[in-house]
């Protein structure tokens, strides 16, 4: 089975790479199989990690505890909360019925509000303030001075509510130079990242599948 798996992996890998030469039926098939497998993966994941592990198993456990007389009120309440959460999740499927799709707004609003509340505090407390604090450190150090001026001029460049003239315009021009250097560095890293992913697949083809090269 392992050999079959390797050869299937190799076949589909080459099918996808064949698109580089020309679009062809092998690529189309591989593309659709990939999409299908990805969707199928989610079903297994949700069934086990959510339905079984977060709903069915805890509800069963609470029911057993309640039936055993161990704080039954508490366990019944927990069962109620879990069933409510499950019901909210099921309500999401109302989106597929045009006349009833408004029902899905309730669980969606709950998740959006919850996430928004978390982000509101975490972005201000966890990112904005520490990053600003990190800018105002020992400005006698040339590196920290570069960072200070870089942050200032970058923020000035991205401030479009006022025309970039005079001192503001000059600062924005300095900001552009900083930005070009940073984006150039980012581009260099991006090229590296893309090439690395290709190296990984070539290693799979030559080492794992065709065994033309010994690892190390």
């Amino acid at each position: 089975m392992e050999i079959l798996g390797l050869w299937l992996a190799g076949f589909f890998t080459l099918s996808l790479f064949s698109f580089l030469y020309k679009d062809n039926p092998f690529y189309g098939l591989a593309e659709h199989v990939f999409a299908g497998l990805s969707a199928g993966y989610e079903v297994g994941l949700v069934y086990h990690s959510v339905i079984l592990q977060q709903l069915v198993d805890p509800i069963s456990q609470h029911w057993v505890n309640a039936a055993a007389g161990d704080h039954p009120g508490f366990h019944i309440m927990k069962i109620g909360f879990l069933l409510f959460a499950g019901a909210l999740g099921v309500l999401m499927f109302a989106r597929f019925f045009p006349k009833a799709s408004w029902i899905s707004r309730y669980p969606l609003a709950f998740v959006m509000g919850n996430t928004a509340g978390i982000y509101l505090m975490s972005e201000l407390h966890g990112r904005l303030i520490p990053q600003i604090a990190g800018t105002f450190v020992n400005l006698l150090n040339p590196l920290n001075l570069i960072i200070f001026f870089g942050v200032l001029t970058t923020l000035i460049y991205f401030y479009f509510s006022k025309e970039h003239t005079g001192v503001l315009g000059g600062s924005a021009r300095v900001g552009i130079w900083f930005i070009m250097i940073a984006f150039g560095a980012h581009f260099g890293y991006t090229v590296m990242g893309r090439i690395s992913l290709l190296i990984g697949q070539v290693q799979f083809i030559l080492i794992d599948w065709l065994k033309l090269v010994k690892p190390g």
Partner: protein
Amino acid sequence: MGFWQRVSQLDRRWIYLAVALAVIFPLLVPMKMKLGITPEARQLYEAIETLPDSSVVMLTFDYYPSTVAETRPMSIAALHQMFRKNLKVITMTTIPLGGPSMADRTMKLMGDLYHKTYGVDYVNLGYKANYTAVLLGMGSSIESIYPSDQYGTPLANLPLMQTVKNYDQISFIFIVADNGIVDNWISIVNAQFSTPMGAGVTAVMAPKFYSYVQAKQMTGLLGGMKGAAEYEMLVNKPAMALIGMDSQSLAHLLIIGFVIAGNVAYFATRKKKESKG
């Protein structure tokens, strides 16, 4: 048609072929070039190395299978170090597509290699949806988010999880990620619970996180396959990332050549067009 005009109109498939050969050749004829180690990689290594034995660390598998070439070597190198130091490892993932499977495979591989016992030396929590809720929820109670581990075993039945209730019992979080989840780890977990953390990320993401290292919100950073290769050297377990650096070298030289050739062709043909009319 002049030479540079022909160059500027080169069929892209020749470019693809050149890239493929640049990557394949060093795998067939290794060059084994020397590699330096960046201070950020060393910082992350030291952060783990200085932890007392039997400390509890969290290792995250926050990457898709699409970036395993860069990120899996980081996870493996990190686990070499953690298991060698007899650290207790808790793993989890925020990636719904493939994260649980990759965490499972890698942990079983490394656990068997170091003869570690599941439930005692390491636990795989698996995946739960909505990562902001997961990251925040684990701050008060891991069990409220993960009633059981990836395999359905209640946390109460796992010896390691009887002593680890939330981030307070975790000494360090080693994030391996290929997306912006690192921002959330920093802004939610590090900021609110003061848990020290470091990250290994893909090369595309790496430049952004230097800011967090400078602001001391993060201890150490690995960037891309080179970062993985550096960590393999630090833990003295050379593997696929180090092997891949030769191909990386040749491919980068090729890309630089393409940029230069493309620009020379562009300016040469532009000059000709301008002189003609």
